[in-house]
């Protein structure tokens, strides 16, 4: 099972990475050069071509993390744990990037870096949950226990996010400007095309990162296991009875 997954990942990751690069370059050209500036927001709107796909991909990555966590608890397959770990790291990165680009967009548009809006707070909480998740993983010694705790944490956090969103929405309802300018008024083809190309590009980029990172985490774990085995062998050779010490004549 594991070797099959790793082989598949190795075979297709180049294609996915290439497609992601192609989409992102095309999308950046369409978004930054070919499309006209927005009627209301001017040139500032162009950051949306990066910001919106980043936010979507961050949520997609958390979705993958959630699915992989459930799958891990069900099947206890170590490679799925590596997949979840990889998705969590990428999701944390994309969430942070979405928060930063959103702030840069909000300053000229809303005239503030930050408001306590439902989406902003949900994303900030999501980032904190993911940061806690990644931190917690470094504090567990036993790999099997680490995977189990991490899966539980990801599932509990996933259930929390909608409640966070609704509670902040009731608490501060300030996000109207966003939905009007993005959905009601100005979602024409000129914006939609570059946006969907960039969304596809970021989704493919996420797929590529996920493949590479999953392999990397798997190999790291393998290396640790082999190191541990070597060390325990050395320990046995030093202190244990002389089992394997007879010189073999085959060499």
């Amino acid at each position, binding site marked *: 099972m594991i070797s099959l997954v790793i082989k598949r990942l190795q075979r297709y990751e180049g294609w996915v990475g290439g497609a992601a690069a192609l989409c992102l370059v095309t999308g950046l050209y369409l978004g930054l050069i070919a499309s006209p500036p927005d009627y209301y927001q001017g040139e500032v709107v162009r950051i949306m071509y990066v910001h919106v796909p980043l936010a979507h991909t961050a949520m997609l990555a958390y979705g993958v993390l959630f699915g992989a966590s459930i799958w891990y608890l069900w099947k206890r397959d170590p490679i799925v744990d590596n997949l979840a770990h990889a998705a969590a790291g990428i999701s944390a990165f994309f969430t942070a990037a979405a928060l930063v680009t959103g702030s840069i967009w909000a300053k000229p548009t809303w005239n503030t870096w930050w408001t306590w809006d439902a989406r902003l707070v949900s994303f900030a909480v999501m980032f904190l949950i993911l940061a*806690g998740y990644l931190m917690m993983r470094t504090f*567990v010694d036993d790999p099997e226990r680490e995977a*189990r705790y991490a899966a*539980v944490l990801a599932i509990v956090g996933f*259930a*929390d996010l909608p*409640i966070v969103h*609704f509670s902040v929405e009731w608490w501060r309802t300030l996000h109207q400007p966003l939905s009007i300018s993005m959905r009601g008024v100005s979602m024409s083809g000129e914006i939609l095309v570059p946006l969907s190309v960039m969304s596809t590009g970021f989704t493919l980029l996420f797929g590529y990162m996920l493949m590479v990172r999953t392999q990397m985490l798997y190999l790291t774990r393998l290396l640790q296991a082999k190191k541990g085995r070597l060390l325990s062998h050395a320990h046995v050779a030093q202190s244990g009875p002389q089992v394997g010490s007879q010189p073999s004549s085959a060499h």
Partner: protein
Amino acid sequence: MSFFRVIHWVAWKDLISEVRSRETISSMFFFALIVILVFSFSFSMDQQAARQLIAGIIWVAFAFTGMIGLGKSFAAELQNDCLEQLQISPAPKGAVYLGKLTANLVFMLLVEIILFPMFVIFFNLDVVEQLPLLLLIFVLATWGLSTVGTLFSAMTVQIRAREVMLPILLLPLAVPVMIAAVEATRGALSASPLDLYQQWLQLLAVFDVVFTVLSFWAFEWIVDS
């Protein structure tokens, strides 16, 4: 032993050992007292400002105090390998969770009930008519904090840096509880009509039910060895 007897005995064991040692409740109480003092130094409040800020101050004090109680809940089981006994015992794990949850809820509520008069005295509040409602808010919000808190306490006690990790993991998840508790408490303290803030009580109830069920299920994965 039946399911409910396990809940009863796990909670009873924690309460008895607390009555004998008085470690958790006294440390929670004095810590919360210090939090109240620090807050009254950091904001110079008149009556008007106090009414605006007090709900937030109450819940910051309660949440941080709760961290101490929750952290101690499973840390106490480390002595004499009690945690391993809980893991290998044939009792249903969900019942152990509910017992622990009950004990934590009782500890936190006790401390809150002792502390609340301090707030009333220090910040000069009028609360007599609102007391039943405030008690309901305290129960719902504290229950919410203890559901995930008890689960994460069991998780963090078995890893390194557990004192740091419990608040880092718990507080982001507790954001809805904190918002709802602060808003409901502010509504009750300012004696505004219940219609204006009953949605927060509903939100607390939803959070409590969702996370009691989820933690009840997840606890099995946490203590499984």
